[in-house]
């Protein structure tokens, strides 16, 4: 078989294109090749008369690669035999069992027996690396994916290798818990069961879970995730690689903040004055409560586009004077003109990050910035009063204005020597309220114009962009003075509230004593879509069913509309809502064309090729 690939493509990737499996542990398509595990040995000609690592050798014109010669097959089997020298036989209780490359490769490439009877290395196990991650050093094959990920991708070295040679082991620095918000990705990276999730530990086996690709609900980046369920419980969240957004990384908030979905405290039935009630009674009580009062509505950050559209209709109609607040929102206005898509950060020659701690507010954008800088050679400028993790790059140019003076500092960057070469990406936040946002935005736009760059406003709330698209993104303070409030999500009632309706998935202290309580569906159950910070509409795929009496938000909003006598509120399903929303709101145009519920599966054996 012959294959033509772009210059620089490594042999492992070229092999995938012709459907030949070259087993790898240390190689990962998002990390620099290192050649540590030696499992990918192949024979190449012309070349040395010995096996060569396919993960560090780029394909060349006329190169002949043989994977099935006795030399190559034997070399790989020998390496596997070595990998298994210290590997314990606890596969039956290992969380990785069933989706473990070591198992699969041993099955397909290894010897059926081992000739090694030397004593095995023993370590204490499992060792908690943090609240969320457990480390089993006996299972580790020292591929260094985890430490390389930490170092290359997150620019931190809190996970490291101690000792050397056969005595090497992975450890967190001085055995202190990992602090990084990006730590969970090492679980996905680990090709064996050495790094496992403590949240999911011993919950289920990989083969008895169902999974769907969906979108993360925790911030405005919109990383793609895979939701895993078992027996009507959401048991795991992993990344789902989308190179246009997340490159296969998700942050720990997205990965671990899902346990409320399975909480035994989940609200399932509506409550009126503390007593269980039917939806009919609860909605009646709610409508009576807000009747004639000054209404305030608090929205959760992960409200869907469809819910926003329906709520917009309500606020345009019967709830005309209602004020609306959005959880975690920034003060940024909707962007004017073209903005910089996340994927285009890769092409930037210079990146300016303004008034935003990206690691905290938009974690995966932070990783994209780091990639553009350390792997693709972009210059990095930061305008922020504090010390950020982006400062770890030795050549970061960091301006530290006093809080409130960021706009002037941004203007002073015009003509800066690092911004001479484009394209320039300008990322800006709102300084968490410390800045005059209008002045800052104007300064950013002026800078973009002067240096020929594009801007990327860094919104915080998951669907803030969608909420701005339908002008429903006020602040918590805006609810002051309202005497009836609907608290959807974790909002506090203002002091002025005489009537409080809470609408949430779990009880919260701030909802204590609410007059009406409505149960809400979570991101794992609801249909709908989010608009991420770049304006991209992405669809949720519910992994759990909505079990009555639980109802989805859009459904409840439709009924409220009907009860308030609005016309055309009797949608037959969410597709009808989406179709209408796509016509009514420019930002929601992609709703007209929802994707197939489940995308095509990728082949298990080879995986997608990434030349």
């Amino acid at each position, binding site marked *: 078989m012959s294959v033509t690939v772009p210059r620089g493509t490594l042999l492992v990737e070229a092999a995938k294109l012709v459907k030949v499996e070259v087993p790898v542990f240390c190689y990962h398509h998002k990390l620099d090749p290192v050649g540590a595990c030696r499992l990918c040995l192949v024979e190449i000609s012309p070349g040395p008369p010995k096996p060569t690592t396919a993960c560090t050798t780029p394909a060349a014109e006329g190169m002949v690669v043989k994977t099935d010669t006795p030399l190559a097959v034997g070399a790989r089997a020998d390496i596997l035999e070595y990998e298994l020298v210290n590997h314990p036989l606890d596969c039956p209780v290992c969380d990785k069992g069933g989706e473990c490359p070591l198992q699969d490769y041993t099955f397909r490439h290894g010897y059926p027996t081992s000739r090694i009877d030397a004593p095995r290395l023993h370590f204490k196990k499992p060792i908690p690396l943090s609240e969320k991650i457990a480390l089993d050093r006996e299972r580790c094959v020292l591929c260094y994916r985890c430490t390389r990920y930490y170092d290359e991708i997150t620019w931190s*070295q*809190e*996970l*490291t*290798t*101690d000792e050397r040679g056969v005595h090497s082991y992975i450890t967190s*620095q*001085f055995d202190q818990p990992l602090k990084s918000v990006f730590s969970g990705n090492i679980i996905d990276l680990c090709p064996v069961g050495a790094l496992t999730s403590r949240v999911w530990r011993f919950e289920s086996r990989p083969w008895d879970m169902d999974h769907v690709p969906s979108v993360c609900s925790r911030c405005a980046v919109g990383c793609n995730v895979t939701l895993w369920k078992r027996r009507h419980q959401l048991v795991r969240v992993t990344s789902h690689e989308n190179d246009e957004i997340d490159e296969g990384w998700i942050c720990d908030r997205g990965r671990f903040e899902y346990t409320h979905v399975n909480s035994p405290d989940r609200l399932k039935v509506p409550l009126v004055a503390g007593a269980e009630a039917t939806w009919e009674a609860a909605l009646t009580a709610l409508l009576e409560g807000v009747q004639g009062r000054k209404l305030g509505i608090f929205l959760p950050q992960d409200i869907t586009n469809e819910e926003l559209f329906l709520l917009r209709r309500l606020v345009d109609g019967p709830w005309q004077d209602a004020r609306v607040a959005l959880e975690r929102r920034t003060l940024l206005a909707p962007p004017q003109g073209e903005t910089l898509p996340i994927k285009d950060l890769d092409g930037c020659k210079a990146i300016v990050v303004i008034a935003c701690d990206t690691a905290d507010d938009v974690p995966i954008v932070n990783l994209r910035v780091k990639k553009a800088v350390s792997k693709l050679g972009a210059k990095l400028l930061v305008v922020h009063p504090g010390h950020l993790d982006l400062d*770890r790059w*030795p050549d970061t140019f960091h301006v530290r204005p006093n809080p409130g003076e960021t706009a002037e500092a941004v203007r002073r960057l015009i003509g800066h020597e690092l911004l001479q070469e484009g394209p320039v990406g300008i990322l800006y936040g709102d300084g968490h309220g410390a800045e005059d946002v209008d002045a800052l935005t104007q300064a950013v736009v002026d800078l973009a114009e002067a240096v020929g760059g594009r801007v990327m406003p860094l919104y915080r709330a998951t669907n803030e962009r969608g909420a701005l698209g339908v002008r429903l993104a006020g602040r918590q303070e805006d609810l002051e003075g309202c005497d009836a409030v609907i608290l959807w999500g974790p909002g506090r009632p203002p002091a002025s509230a005489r009537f409080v309706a809470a609408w949430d998935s779990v009880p919260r202290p701030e909802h204590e004593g609410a007059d009406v309580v409505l149960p809400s569906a979570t991101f794992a159950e609801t249909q709908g879509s989010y608009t991420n910070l770049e304006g991209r509409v992405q669809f949720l795929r519910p992994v759990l069913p909505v079990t009555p009496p639980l109802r989805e938000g859009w459904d409840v909003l439709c009924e409220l509309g009907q009860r308030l006598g609005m016309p055309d509120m009797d949608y037959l399903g969410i597709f009808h809502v989406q179709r209408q929303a796509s016509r009514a709101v420019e930002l929601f145009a992609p709703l007209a064309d929802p994707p197939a519920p489940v995308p095509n599966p990728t082949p298990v054996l080879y995986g997608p090729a990434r030349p």
Partner: protein
Amino acid sequence: MAALSEHAIEEIRALPPRFPHIRSAVLPALDVAQDELGYLTREAMTEVAELLDLDPGYVEGVATFYTLLHLEPIGKHHFYVCTNLSCDLRGAYEICDHIKRRIGVEGFGEVSADGLFSLEEVECLGACEFAPMMRYQRRYHYDLTPEKVDALIEAARQNGGDRAADSPRDAAAASQKPPGRRASSRGPTKEDSAELNA
């Protein structure tokens, strides 16, 4: 905090510009720290990391990799006795046992009660032609005999335990190769082994 003295901190701060990557400065920085403290404490490693703008984890990884960087206290006088093939055949373990008896310790890595001495077996130091040999006080000592070792221990005791730094940093300067037998007909001389730090 400040596990390190002002002087050491200054010395470490001056290191990075001398290297293409800041990480290259970790080893010399750890040498400075070990010179000052005798061994590397967690605090010292953390401080080195801060001075070089790295996470302590990286420094820890480097420090645990090299056996010449000590993570446990060692004696003020530390014997690095080679026990590889040539030295072993010529009685390196007898020398080790002799040293252990003299300084009153049971095993390698143990520090004598007075805190003065400790010993460690090391891999080949590249002076097989003078086996058995050891590194002690920045110098190689050749053709070891119990008497030669006794003289060294006695001199150190006389010295009152004035800690002469014995660190890998000095190894480069001090291990000017002894005149090889082939290169020079002189062979090892008395000075080679009897030389002590003043």
